[in-house]
């Protein structure tokens, strides 16, 4: 168990990284919409060119910071990592989004390459894929926010077993503290 001071610090870092990730995804979504709708060829090419470095320098570090601080926070606190369904779902969302993001970096490099070639027709530069992926990421991260705020009840089978063990230990502790004479 982490000390209350360290737990608050890790929670602050986790919230900062996660909210930052959500904000960066919204900015990325705006960039994708701009690339698809702008009438200015330079703006369209610029939007698709900047996606790869923006994702590499902002989205990827924030996603892993969110994952790392979330795991430390869960393991060092009362909730645990596999005991409550809401924590488990958040972990799955974070891991899935981070893996898809890493795989998608290859696509963003391809999209930037197409946009960088002045010979490529503007219709080919306009790619709906970043909009689709950023939209899906936003949806997943909003679900994670809702789970964090509402913390819906529900223990996993592992969590239920641990809870039973904890209660048994507590009863044993009470029994030892108040021996029958």
């Amino acid at each position: 168990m982490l000390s209350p001071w360290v737990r608050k610090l890790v929670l602050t870092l986790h919230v900062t990284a996660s909210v930052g990730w959500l904000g960066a995804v919204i900015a990325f979504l705006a960039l994708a919409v701009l690339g698809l709708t702008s009438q200015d060829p330079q703006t369209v090419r610029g939007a698709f060119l900047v996606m790869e470095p923006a994702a590499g320098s902002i989205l990827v570090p924030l996603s892993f910071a969110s994952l790392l601080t979330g795991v430390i926070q869960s393991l060092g606190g009362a909730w645990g990592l596999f005991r409550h369904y809401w924590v488990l779902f958040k972990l799955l969302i974070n891991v899935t989004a981070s893996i898809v993001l890493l795989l998608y970096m290859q696509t963003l490099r391809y999209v930037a390459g197409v946009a960088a070639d002045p010979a490529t027709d503007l219709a080919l530069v306009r790619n709906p894929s970043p909009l689709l992926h950023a939209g899906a990421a936003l949806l997943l991260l909003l679900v994670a926010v809702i789970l964090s705020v509402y913390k819906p009840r529900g223990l996993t089978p592992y969590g239920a077993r641990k809870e039973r063990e904890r209660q048994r230990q507590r009863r044993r502790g009470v029994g030892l503290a108040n021996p029958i004479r």
Partner: protein
Amino acid sequence: MADVTDPEARLGTPLWVKVFGVIALVVLVLFVIVFITGGGAMHGPARHAP
């Protein structure tokens, strides 16, 4: 909101977990179908080209 010490939290699998599980399963199945039926035959950067 869940409570670590809440006895109700121990009762079976909650409905919201079942709903989330079904949605995740449907998304996974759709992804596998798209992947198998040619859509994902060349999944990668070129697939995203318009």
